[in-house]
């Protein structure tokens, strides 16, 4: 017999194999998931989940697809959280401090409680990246927040009503578009292609019989 544990899905007790993830436990119990399940691999943030081990004070947050069940786990899924996303035109905004003040002024109401960081399912230093955003240091904010999956747990715990993942996303787009250095070789290559510089090379390949293509392929030089 498999090693079993008791978990409480939305408060209701189920006995499930101890080896399962929380998501696997829900399916074992009989839930056909529609909400709260996306990539099942820790990238999409659909399965944000809050749990507490019976008798303990501490509240934990996790991704259900990435977390193994434990005995006496009280589980509440958070398949949606109302984050506030501001609409903007990426071509019009500029990477200045003012843009955060305009779009997400609530970040300046941060009281420094650090609940966001404590709850982050990706173990990011959320409060720190918000601090960078406050100061207009978008490059640092982008780096610190990079692994964010936008599950929204941080925002659910924030007394200031900050939508951290949206703030971070704006910072990353500003960084990617305006702050990070331009790739000159990329721009150069795009111009060459627009100029038609490679058309005849490609057309030549497209017309080659397969045997010739195979020969070219099998003897091609491979960069070290």
């Amino acid at each position, binding site marked *: 017999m498999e090693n079993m544990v008791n978990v409480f899905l939305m408060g209701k007790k189920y006995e499930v194999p101890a080896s399962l993830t929380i998501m696997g436990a829900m399916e074992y119990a009989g839930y056909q998931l529609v909400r709260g399940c996306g*990539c099942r691999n820790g*990238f999409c943030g*659909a399965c944000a989940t809050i749990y507490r081990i019976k008798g303990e004070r501490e509240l934990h947050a996790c991704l259900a697809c990435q977390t193994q069940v434990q005995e006496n786990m009280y589980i509440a899924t958070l398949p949606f959280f109302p984050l506030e996303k501001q609409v903007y035109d990426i071509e019009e905004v500029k990477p200045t401090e003012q843009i955060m003040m305009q779009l997400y002024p609530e970040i300046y109401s941060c009281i420094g409680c650090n609940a966001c960081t404590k709850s982050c399912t990706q173990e990011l230093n959320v409060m720190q990246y918000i601090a960078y955003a406050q100061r207009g240091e978008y490059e640092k904010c982008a780096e610190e927040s*990079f692994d964010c999956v936008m599950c929204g747990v941080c925002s659910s715990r924030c007394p200031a009503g900050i939508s951290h993942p949206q703030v971070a996303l704006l910072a990353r787009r500003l960084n*990617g578009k305006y702050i990070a*250095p331009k790739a000159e070789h990329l721009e150069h290559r795009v111009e060459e*292609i627009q100029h038609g510089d490679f058309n005849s090379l490609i057309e030549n390949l497209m017309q080659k019989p397969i045997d010739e293509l195979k020969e070219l392929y099998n003897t091609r030089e491979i960069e070290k």
Partner: protein
Amino acid sequence: MYSGEILKSMKKVEAARAKNVQLEPRRMTAEEKDTLLATYHPDYKQDQFAVLQVGPNKGEKVPTELAALLQANSRVNPDKLDLSKVDYDVDVLVIGGGGAGSSAAIEADEAGAKVMIVTKLRIGDANTMMAEGGIQAADKPNDSPAIHYLDAMGGGHFTNKPELLSKLVLEAPSAIQWLNNLGVEFDKAPDGTMITTHGGGTSRKRMHAAKDYSGAEIMRTLRDEVLNRQIPVVDFTAAIELILDEQGKAAGAVLLNMETQEIKIARAKTVIIATGGAGRLHYQGFPTSNHYGATADGLILGYRAGAKLLYADTLQYHPTGVAYPEQIFGALVTEKVRSVGAMLINSEGEAFMHPLETRDVSAASIIRECSTNGKGVHTGNGGVGVWLDTPMIEMKGGAGTIEKRIPAMMRMFAKYDIDIRKVPILVYPTLHYQNGGLEITPDGMTGIENLFVAGEAVGGIHGRNRLMGNSLLDIIVFGRSAGKNAAAKSHDVKVGELTLSHVKKFAKEMEEAGIHSEIVSPKLLPDYRRPRTTL
């Protein structure tokens, strides 16, 4: 952490590491690869395929699981549906909210069309979000689109449609530029030079990445752009049948609210299928690296309406899915782990192959190592795998390389007390990508007028095996292109009377062929519930 047989084998890997790290195993010859594939690749297991008896590809073979869905019953009764009551009326209807669908929607919107996205889960719940390794583009001085073309053509066993592949490689640099201009962050050197690496089968280092969150970085940016443009996204709503007009042109879709089961009718001048892949059909019982909704819905919709499939019999098994621990069994271990220096090592500590062969060859080689060669590591519960020696990465690239370049992998294993900087990991092939799909012309249109396809639902771009980094690329190139072309085409379209006669016709053909199916399709979602006594 590891114990028992796994730990014993790991000691051999550790003992051989200093020697192995110096090696560059030779690459296989073309003949060796052909024999290997024919013997060990799942695509060659004839008993796992069925011949289609109805529809545009009648007489051709596809995986049995796909055949069962292609030759199944519609979810709707055409006689009971009132198509005259239109709930959504748009120029361009995009079915699917992944990278291809979002790119298409952005470009259609840019072109001034009235566009709407429907997606059965949320926008961004897609394989795009999970693509870790990177995106190819020949933008370095020692590279060219022609070399990219040859790499992809060889990787695809010379079966790629040349006119689709040339579009892919020629528009690759501008795709990267478009993403960068939207704010996608790429790994760059301080002077702005893109940091690029090899992928399996590339002859130049042209893999652009955003750490190992490449797809997630692209997807979250595209999603943000869709929302900024205020393009309507009808989420938790699946398309369950295409609607044609009386001339047989695509004219909309029947939609199903996944939660309330309410049916809605969408009318559109042009329709773009961007529904992605099929990993959740678990072909041949393989685990999958795909997202929850990867059930080949677009192929079913298109096929029933008369669109032709191309290479639907070829799937990609990613060589390195997680073999251990079981909680993440089948999850993707990005090819980038090998790009940055990890080698494949068998249970005896031997580097049994070059780590950057193409995916089909690598997968077949690992299967051979674990079967005939008997040099797999048994993981308990009947599982088996080979080692991917991650500590080599920092021996080659220096301390901190793993955290900097593959943080998602480090995090995924750390949750199970496996520190990939210090110990190697166990991998085995996992169902990863649908090489085939609906056949299109370079403008993105199928044989059905006004029906476009983009992304993983397309067949032909990659031939019978896709190279790493060409999928993130194709969703952008062909997604954008489908969006532009569908928007342009919509100017001249006057939608006729909506009809589901093709659904009736397909059912009649099935009946005439003597096929009686209990299954309804598209599948929409897999069912992982434990078998229980239910009402």
